[in-house]
């Protein structure tokens, strides 16, 4: 015989979401204090897959840390490669040939589209829609095949080198990228917007839910689509330009609503902008070498160095301290999702559990990057 549980109105209970839960996309635990279906307090618990990446950087040479960077944010691995390459090049004063810069931008932006496509698929899976995942993965597979041709790997790329890239791109890659852009532009309105964006179920699930204010973004240091969905026009590619981004004409999509729908729309528009950047880069692609002159053993001068890049999830900062040795003295990473997740606790207060999960999906969390 089952005895019905009667909770008093002021009585709460603790619900553990994770560490193993399909909606957290990794080993993230959220301690939820619930009042019925409503969240009274949400407390993310981190550290389940901490692997000491920053410490690992200190124990190897600069080049030996490159494979690690791809294993933090495995969805936008090339941007993490780029961040590390940029800060070391800044420290060691290494020049990068122009062609290599263009190739970097093309591959990083392709990777950004792949990352957004996977987010889109996984987000809709969280909301209970399975079909869109297959369409998104079909397109993502094309990008991965393209990148596999030039980088040699499919997910955890180790493609960038200090002073250039590992391998040149060929005509087949250029033609394949153009074909892909045409294909995605053709499929975007029907398979992505008609089927999903304008669908009433999606609108009811994410519109006017999970409001994040611009003030909250500033307070927690949220960046990327989360900040741009709350009306903060901030993109490292525009505001603190690096590489050859200033040469391209692209917009930074900003939505002022601050709800989950706004973050969704920012990412959908960003894919289009990335395609614009890739097209311009392919048109302007200069000739020349893809690898500049870089010493085999790097010994940057002692000092503090900082550089930031825009990844699919926000701004990634590398703070590097050198003491003139061939290993970094100290490396501090400022990873975007760590800050984006921090505001979850405050925003999720008073939300329905199902809405909070939709909100969490719209933050686009990659756990290995939070727990570095």
């Amino acid at each position, binding site marked *: 015989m089952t005895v019905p549980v009667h909770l008093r109105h002021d009585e709460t209970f603790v619900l553990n979401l994770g560490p193993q839960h399909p909606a957290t996309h990794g080993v993230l635990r959220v301690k939820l204090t619930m009042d019925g279906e409503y969240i009274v307090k949400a407390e993310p618990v981190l550290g389940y897959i901490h692997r000491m990446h920053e410490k690992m950087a200190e124990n*190897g040479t600069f*080049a*030996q*840390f*490159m*494979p*690690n960077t791809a*294993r933090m944010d495995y969805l936008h691995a090339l941007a993490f490669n780029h961040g590390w390459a940029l800060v070391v090049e800044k420290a060691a004063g290494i020049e990068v040939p122009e062609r290599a810069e263009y190739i970097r931008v093309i591959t990083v932006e392709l990777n950004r589209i792949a990352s957004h496509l996977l987010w889109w698929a996984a987000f809709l899976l969280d909301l209970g829609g399975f*079909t869109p995942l297959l*369409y998104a993965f*079909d397109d993502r*597979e094309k990008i991965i095949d393209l990148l*596999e*041709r*030039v*980088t*040699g*790997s499919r997910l*955890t790329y*180790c493609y960038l080198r200090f002073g250039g890239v*590992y*391998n040149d791109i060929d005509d087949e890659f250029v033609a394949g990228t153009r074909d892909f852009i045409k294909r995605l532009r053709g499929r975007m309105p*029907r*398979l992505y917007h*008609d*089927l999903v964006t*304008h*669908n*009433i*179920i999606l609108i009811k699930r994410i519109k006017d839910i999970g409001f994040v204010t611009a003030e909250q973004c500033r307070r927690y240091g949220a960046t990327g689509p989360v900040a741009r969905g709350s009306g903060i026009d901030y993109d490292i590619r525009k505001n603190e330009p690096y590489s050859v981004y200033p040469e391209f004409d692209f917009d930074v999509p900003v939505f002022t609503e601050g709800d989950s729908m706004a973050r969704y729309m920012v990412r959908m528009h960003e894919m289009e902008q990335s395609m614009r950047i890739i097209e311009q880069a392919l048109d302007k692609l200069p000739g020349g070498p893809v690898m500049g002159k870089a010493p085999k053993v790097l010994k940057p001068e002692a000092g503090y160095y900082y550089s930031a890049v825009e990844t699919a999830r926000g701004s990634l900062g590398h703070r590097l301290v050198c003491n003139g040795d061939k290993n970094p003295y100290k490396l501090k990473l400022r990873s975007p999702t760590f800050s984006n997740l921090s505001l979850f606790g405050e925003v999720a207060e008073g939300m329905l559990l199902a809405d909070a999960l939709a909100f969490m999906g719209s933050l686009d969390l990659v756990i290995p990057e939070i727990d570095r």
Partner: protein
Amino acid sequence: MSGYLSDIVTGGKSLVTGLAITAREFFRPVVTEQYPWEVPTMTPLFRGHIELIGNEETGEPNCVVCGMCQRACPSVCISLDGKKNESGKGKVLTRYILDFTKCSLCGSCVESCNFNALRFSRDYNLASFDKNDFTMDLMKRLEEQNRCKR
């Protein structure tokens, strides 16, 4: 009440759009590869585990035991030994062990090699219940390849 009715109308429209798209996609050609029966085409740059390159004529490894690959490896996967070359100067390779369980396929070893002695293999269907299967003796592997060539 009007909100309720308009929800029904837009909901019905969403449903019809969704079904129409699904129906159209249903008749498109299948994109899935049936893996064990269909083998995907591999790119020339495919990164498998590393293997030694043998000399074209003699089949002996090109390696001169300089140890650059060992030093470049971030995860200490490579251990190698050599002895003095009896006929002339330099060293010859006697042992080359790769611990593939630790390898992250970054390619630093292949890049650091100045003597054209290392390359990526094209093996991809590696699976085993035993960890020791991934401690690979690359000398033995090269000998087997030479025997197959003959």
